[in-house]
């Protein structure tokens, strides 16, 4: 506990009440309100799997709506279905990408729209991956299912800045071949990258599948990967077992990096919705080290 405690303790009396004449009325809107989305346009929709599509979102002025760091998030809304948080998987000058799995009302509605649909978009939110910490090191990416989405922005960043990082290893799996997202990168593009290994697995054998069969959490041990900095993303249950396996293999808790999901509303650390103990996942996360998680109450 004590580490988290120190991290957040702010003993100083607040002095942040803005200095202004209290006798002056305020009227009109405040342009910098972080809770108000901008208008965006879904310019491209790519079907990745039967239930995952990638949406490219462009701002109303034709440029990307904001510039996130790898691992940061955006709040996407489609009226009248509400808004939800998604990882930004990629970006360029004209758009950001989000890979979205159809699971509920908003996400199913998004899967039904056509290119050209307008939406609301706000962000970037969250802390993102610790690029300085990863710099120059060997990195192992371990992801399951839609967990490829949060980690993808970091893998892409490392490939784009290839010489800044050591060996790159990707261990990725899904229920079936059809459920693997970003197959182009997995099978065509990344295997060609210098000093980069890709290991793909599916849960059950399938006709025509020549690759590895088995669950993601046990795969790194089968591959006998040497301990280094690792980034683990996926459903809660996969993360739990993967962290156990990595601990057994001698990975250090401060070098195992993961992302958390909690329900979110504001995304700016105010509404209280996404707390794990005294941490707000939307602001202090979603990226945490295993060391930080160990210090938090096990409530996620």
């Amino acid at each position, binding site marked *: *506990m004590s580490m988290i405690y120190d991290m957040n303790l702010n003993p100083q009396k607040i002095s942040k009440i803005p200095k202004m004449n*209290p006798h002056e009325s*305020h009227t009109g809107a405040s342009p910098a309100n972080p809770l*108000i989305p901008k208008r965006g346009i879904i310019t491209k929709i790519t079907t990745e799997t039967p239930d995952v599509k990638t949406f490219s979102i462009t701002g109303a002025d034709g440029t990307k709506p904001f510039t996130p760091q790898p691992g940061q998030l955006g709040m996407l809304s489609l*009226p*009248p279905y509400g808004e939800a948080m998604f990882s930004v998987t990629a970006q360029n000058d004209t758009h950001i990408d989000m890979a979205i799995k159809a699971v509920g009302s908003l996400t199913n509605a998004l899967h039904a729209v056509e290119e050209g649909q307008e939406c609301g978009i706000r962000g970037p939110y969250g802390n993102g991956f610790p690029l300085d910490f990863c710099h120059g090191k060997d990195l192992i990416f371990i992801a399951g299912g839609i967990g490829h989405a949060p980690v993808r922005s970091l893998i892409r960043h490392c490939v784009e800045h290839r010489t800044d990082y050591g060996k790159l290893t990707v261990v990725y799996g899904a229920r079936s071949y059809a459920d693997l997202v970003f197959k182009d990168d997995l099978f065509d593009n990344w295997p060609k990258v210098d000093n980069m290994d890709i290991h793909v697995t599916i849960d059950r054998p399938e006709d025509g599948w020549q690759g590895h069969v088995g669950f993601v959490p046990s795969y790194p041990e089968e591959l006998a990967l040497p301990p280094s900095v690792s980034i683990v993303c996926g459903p809660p249950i996969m993360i739990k077992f993967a962290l156990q396996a990595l601990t057994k293999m001698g990975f250090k808790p401060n070098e195992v990096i993961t992302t958390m999901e909690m329900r979110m509303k504001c995304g700016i650390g*105010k509404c209280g919705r996404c*707390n794990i*103990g*005294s941490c707000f996942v939307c602001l202090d996360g979603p990226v945490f080290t295993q060391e930080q998680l160990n210090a938090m109450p096990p409530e996620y």
Partner: protein
Amino acid sequence: MKTIAKTQIDSILKALAVPYNLYIPVAGAFTQTPGREGLENASQFRLYQEGLPLHWTTNTCLSPKDLLFPQTEEMYTIVSHGKTVEIQEKAIGHKPTILFGIRSCDIESIDCMDRVFLEKGFEDTYYKTRRPRTILFALSCTTHEDTCFCTSMGVNPQSSPSADVQISDLGDTFSFTAQTLGGEQALAYVDALLSEIIGTGPSGALKTQTPDTLKTPEELKEIALSNAADSTLSSAADSTLSSSSADSPLSSAADSTLNAAADNAGNKTSAASPLPTDPMIITVNSDGVSEKLENMFEHPLWDEINLPCLGCGACTYVCPTCYCFDINDKTLSHTTINKQRCWDSCMFSDYTRMAGGHNPRPSKKERVRNRFLDKLLYNRQRHGRLFCVGCGRCVAKCPVNLEIATVIQKIQAAEVTPS
């Protein structure tokens, strides 16, 4: 010292209501609606109108938090036609405002809100618009309700150093002391109505109100602590129980308000109103409670105390430091929705539920634990202070008496094996 006779207070309110939006505490009313006669309309802060009487005897049933953080705030309108979407932001109008007669506990709760909405990364635009344009007139307490335990939480019911103006209840008169520039400017509007008293008249009485005879928060806390040490755990818990279970939850606050008013009427003849000399009924030792809770996440206490909870959310609704909100849609037509944010409660079962049904806090146990850890540990870690100011509202309003003062005592009494 600037004072005014209590009988003349309306002249001050009337004058302040011209340049400011003036909110004052107003007593609860009883509805005359056929079939519902007698139901309490809770005492709360209302916009001043001429003739609306100031309720100054005890604190309000509802806290004034909604004046800085409204229960519902419309944020923007979205209009969608076919593939197009248009977003129209709502203006945040805010006239200079005075909150007149806020008690020390609620002034402290505003400090909690400041830390949440103005600190840590983002600033909340709505709060940041209202807060600097809101002038706080604190009113000292001369009596307390059965459910108050502010002194146990380090709050001084007689003085609020962070308020813009301190009003002290001196029996027949109120005194006004500006503590900030904003307070000075506000008092300038009523200067002509106030009389200056310098050591004349009933000065003996007034002297008791000079700052050096006021107890410091530390002294008050010590008094509370020695009281807490005197009362055994069970007797304190009993008195807590009896104080809130004697009446039905809806009528208890109204009754105690009336009782307190009667008390005060009896005291009225005494020259000045010194500190409340009778100790508060509820006293707890809040020292070290955060540190203790660090090792209590898995403690069996949580299995036991959550049992009576109904998940009604009354505790979070009345709490002046509870700040959670939801963002949702108000549908105006099939093309137009208003996005609004509304108070929410971590005591509701769907608060943390995610797609596919996964819920990190699936049962009452986790939700009750989260609420008390939030008040007593998480906010201390995150914002540097406890988020309970001892106002006693949850004590008065929880229908099953699952209230924080007893919980603090149980935490202090719990046996913990350090991890």
